[in-house]
Structure formats: C-alpha cells, structure tokens
C-alpha cells in the first residue's frame, strides 16, 4: 500500500544527524504534520546540534533553542506572547529528547500540562542521553547498557511510564508514535494541532550509535518495538479514553533485544523477565482500552 503523506518538506538536507538517526526522521514527519504556522522550542538534546550551528539552520520554521529543563515553560511563554499579539493560530511546539522530558524537564512539562497550556509537546525518545555520549536516562529500558549503566551493572529498573504520567494530568491528548509508522505519526500531529490545550506525543526514535546497531535498521527496530508490544501505538484522550491504534503481531521480545549491542549481555533469564514485564504492561493497556 503506498504511503500517503503531505509532500512538503520543511527540513533541509545537510543537517548534522548521525546516519540512521531516528530523531531526524521523526522531525521530518513532525513538520509534515504541522503545516506552515508553527514555532519550535528545542531544549538541550541531540537536536540542539542536528539543527545546525550559527549561522545555519536545517529547519524552515522559527526555532528557539533553550536550556535543558525549560521545554514546558518556554513554550508557555511563547504561547502567551503570540496570543497577546492576536496570533492564536500558530502552533507552539516543544521538541525535546527523553532526558529533557522524563528527567530534567519533567517539572516544567508537568507545570505546563497542569495549566493546560495550548501547546504541543513532542518527546523524541532514543532511550538515553545520546548527545552527551549514551548515559542512562529515565527512559532507558531494563537491562540496557549505557556508559553510566555498564554491562557489569546494566539498568536494573524499568523505563518510566511517561504516557501514564501525562495522562494523569488529564490533558486533552496524549499519543505514542513511531518513525516506522509515518502515516500514524502525521495523523497524530494533525489531530494534536486541531485540539486546544496541552497535547503530548511520545515518539520512538532509535539511535543506532547509542544502541550499537547498524544505521540501516533503525526503522526496522522501531517497527519491531511496536510489533513486540514493547512500544505500542495508542492514544489517550482527556487522560482516560485509551485507544490502541495498531494490534501488534506479538513477537517475542527476543526479536527486538537480540539485534542490539546494548542488550547483548542479557541472559535467557533476563529476557524472560523482560518478556513478563512487557506482557504485563500490554495487558494493562488493553484493560484501559476496554474501559475507554
């Protein structure tokens, strides 16, 4: 089936992403969904570099680069100023990494969500602090190697459930998206733009460099994350109405884990434990979708 996406491109070639960078692909799809009237704020993350150094920019929309923990607050200020000059149409978007969202920026994001600021907050999740050289974040999954969770002591705890955290704020719209499903992602961006209030997108964006995989398999990995139910595609409206957008095949997590250098130290027992976690999370999500 041919993929149908808006044809316009608002990202120039010549950006500074690594080959196979999921965050670069995700930005391209975001911009396809946003339309012309958008302003981006980018807290410290890989995109602080990817977008290009002064005096260049890889984006055809205005960008305000800002400090690590300010994604929610800076966007709130931009929104207020645009409203003050009568521009209620332009969509204010924060584009942040997982560290800037799950960890250091969680407070300002929560503040913005609690105020139900009319902004779109997009977290592109590559599951560690990649720009600084692969340090563990709150988004790093169980068992992963990073430079601060070396193989002798890989990450012992689970990935923070950012979607549940955002849903608990009862914001109008929260959704997961993946670079392997561009139509789904663009539709979700468009839906988010059509709604007033705080919208949150959690976008799965593999990092070949940090995950120790060949650059050509990042889209395939993103697809596997969905099909193994590790990263299901779903939406939450008003914090309570859950909709699962794609029924995964339900491959075993091995299919996903065994392809990645960051997990190569894991034992059979580790993978069984991870499979049990994924099954349990999936059952809970299905139960929430039934209630919704």
């Amino acid at each position, binding site marked *: 089936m041919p993929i149908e996406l808006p044809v316009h491109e608002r990202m120039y070639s010549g950006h500074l992403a690594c080959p196979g960078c999921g965050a670069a692909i995700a930005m391209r799809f975001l911009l396809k969904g946003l339309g*012309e*009237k*958008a*302003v981006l*704020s980018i807290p410290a993350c890989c995109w*602080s*570099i990817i*977008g*290009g*150094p*002064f*005096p260049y*920019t890889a*984006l*055809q*929309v*205005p*960008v*305000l*680069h*800002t*400090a690590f*923990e*300010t994604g*929610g*607050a*800076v*966007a*709130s*200020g*931009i*929104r*207020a*100023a*645009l*409203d*003050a*000059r009568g521009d209620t149409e*332009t969509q204010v978007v924060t584009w942040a990494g997982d560290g800037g969202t799950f960890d250091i920026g969680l*407070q*300002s994001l*929560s*503040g913005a969500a*609690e*105020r139900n600021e009319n902004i779109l907050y997009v977290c592109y999740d590559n599951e560690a602090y990649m720009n600084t050289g692969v340090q563990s974040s709150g988004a790093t999954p169980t068992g992963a190697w990073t430079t601060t969770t070396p193989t002798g002591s890989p990450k012992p705890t689970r990935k923070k459930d950012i979607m549940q955290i955002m849903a608990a704020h009862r914001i109008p719209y929260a959704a997961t998206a993946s670079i392997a499903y561009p139509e789904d992602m663009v539709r979700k961006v468009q839906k988010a733009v059509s709604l007033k209030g705080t919208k949150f997108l959690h976008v799965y964006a593999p990092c070949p460099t940090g995950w120790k995989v060949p650059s050509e398999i990042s889209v395939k990995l993103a697809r596997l994350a969905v099909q193994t139910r590790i990263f299901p595609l779903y939406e939450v409206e008003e914090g309570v109405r859950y909709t699962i957008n794609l029924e995964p095949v339900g491959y075993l997590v091995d299919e996903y884990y065994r392809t990645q250098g960051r997990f190569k130290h894991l034992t059979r027992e580790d993978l069984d434990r991870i499979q049990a976690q994924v099954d349990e999370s999936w059952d809970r999500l299905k139960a929430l979708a039934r209630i919704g």
Partner: protein
Amino acid sequence: MRRVLEGSHAVSHAVELARVKVISAYPITPQTHIVERLAELVADGVLDARFIRVESEHSAMAAVIGAASAGARSFTASSSHGLALMHEMLHWAAGARLPVVMAEVNRAMGPGWNIWADQTDSLSQRDTGWIQLYCEDVQEVLDTILIAYKLAERVSLPAMVVLDAFFLSHTYEPVEVPEQDEVDAFLPAWEPTEILDPADPHAFNQLASPEYYMEFRYKIQQAMEDALRAHDEIDAEFGRRFGRSYGAVHRIPCREGERAPLALVTTGSVTGTARVAQAALRQKGIGVDVVKLKLFRPFPHEEIRRVLGPYDRVIVLDRNISFGSGGIFASEIRAALALRGEQPAVYPFVAGLGGRDITPQTIESVVARALGDEPPSDILWEGLKL
C-alpha cells in the same frame, strides 16, 4: 496622582503603567505582594496581560524568555532562593539579548532560613549580564521600573530593579503615580525586529562555535557600556517629564557646595538612613558626604573615580558579603579607584546582614571608626555580637 502605596504595589502599578503583556512568577516571601497585586490587575481586566503561574522560578524566567523571544514586553519578580534557582536562565536571558525586567527583593540566602534584607542574592548574579538598579525608596522603585524597561529595550539587555526586603517591599509611602498617557509618551510599545515569526523563520540561541562565541560576548559588553550612557540619558528624560531623576551615582553633600573629608557610599534603603545620620553628624560638627550608588551593572567606573577620587577617606557600607573576599560594592569601588594615581583610603564595612537593623547609630559608629585610628583593612565588621 498622589497615592500611599506599599513598595511591592508600587512595582505592580509600574508594571501596569508599562503595559506589560506577559507576567510569569512563582511565590517567595517577600516578593509575593508584587505578583498577587499583578494577578488581581490581570484578573480584573485592568491590565491586558497574561499571568503564567509557573511551578518554579526557573520556569518563571524560562517563560518570560519565551514570551520576550516572541516579542512581548515581559515581567517577573523574585527574591533570594528564587533568584538563585533562576541563575541559569538569567544567563540565558542576557545571552539571548532579551529586555526582560524583573523586580528583585533583596533577601538573605539560607541556611539558616532568613527572609530579611540582604544584598548577597542579587550581587551573586553580578556576572549574568543583567543591568542592576538599586532603589532607595518607594517612589524610586516605581520610577525605576519604567526607566528599566526603556533602558533594557534600548540596549537589548535584561534589567533587575532591586529593592530591600520589608524596608521597601512592605513599607507604605506617599508616591506620585504618573498618568498613563505620560508613561505612554515616555515608554512607547516595544517593537522588536527579530522575533519568533512563522512568516520570517530564524533559529535563535543556537550552537555558537569558538569561531563566533567570543564576538557575541563582546557585543554584550558593548551593550553594557552603551547602557551606562543610555541610563543617564533616560534618567534625565524621566526627570524632564516627571520632575524626578536619580543618577547612576548621586552625591549628597553634607554642606552644599563643599566637599567633606569623608564620603560614605550606600545602596538601597540604607541611603535614607544615611541622610538622617548625616544631619545628626553635622550637628556634632562632623562632615560626611553621602554617595548613593544606584547603578551596579553596568558599573559606573569613571563616575565612581570622578566622585570618590578626591576624598581622603571613603566608607563603603555593604549589606552583603562575598566569603573569602568581603563586601562586594567595596571590592568593585576599590577596583575602579585603582586606575587613579592618588586614591582615598577605603573603609569597607560589612553590616546589617540578614536584616539586622542599620540605624543612624550604626552609621555614626562606622564614621567614628573611619575617622579614628582604625587602619583601612580588606574587611571591617560593624555590629557583630561575638
């Protein structure tokens, strides 16, 4: 119109008169009255602005940075620990060349918890690239907010209007409140040319390599130097329009047309106390000229040399301390005087930390010490109870 206003509310009404569009703040004693009144003015529709009640001071500064980047005249207020939490974003506002104005209520840093007057909070932000203006009384607080916006927007740098905890923030004084049309004429709408605009997209605050970074910093320093001249021009214009002006450095002679052998440098509300002490000392036959320092950043080096250079002795009264060095105003003043061949002996007194009263007797005591046999030292303490 003459009104009796609390210092905090003088700030609020100045912000109203400045037609600020975006306010963002987080509560901290003794700043709260400023933002409470602003929240009311916005809620009642008196002030056509958006009030963003954020979850921290860091976010308050981030929000006004976002707002100013999109072209809105913006305001916040903080104090002490709140200001310290903003520190990172203070650098960001200045580096991004945004003319945000903040009211900063001078309060001590903990521990121990102390909500009273002390200047170490604002002076710790000395190197962030913010203009800093210290106020003596409630009228000056109101006027300085208006001056600060004009100055900040002229040179594209943020400005901090500093007032003492309680001595100014919670004190009611009669204040001349300018009419709106007079303020509009003095401070027209801010019309920046480079803002976040989908019709004219640019990237702001992006990666600046060693190839570019240093020139950006040089331009900030140039803007600060411009701000010295601009402050005097704007202060003079304010004087022509409203009948009040303050000066970056203001000398209050003991006897008009004469120079006393001793100068006493003060900042903030202590200047008011010094005026009283000056009169009492004059009655006792002791001549002291008071020199009020209002502008701390940019630092008026030349003006300091011109005004203080001719004195035999200079007392600097610091309600602040840089541990391991001493009073911060004294340190800067001595550094400025070092460019002169002949220098006065400087007596750097630290007094009144954490809201301990600086009374006319305190001032008489430091004057007696400076005129006595006590040698000038790197640091002198007044009023210690050991």
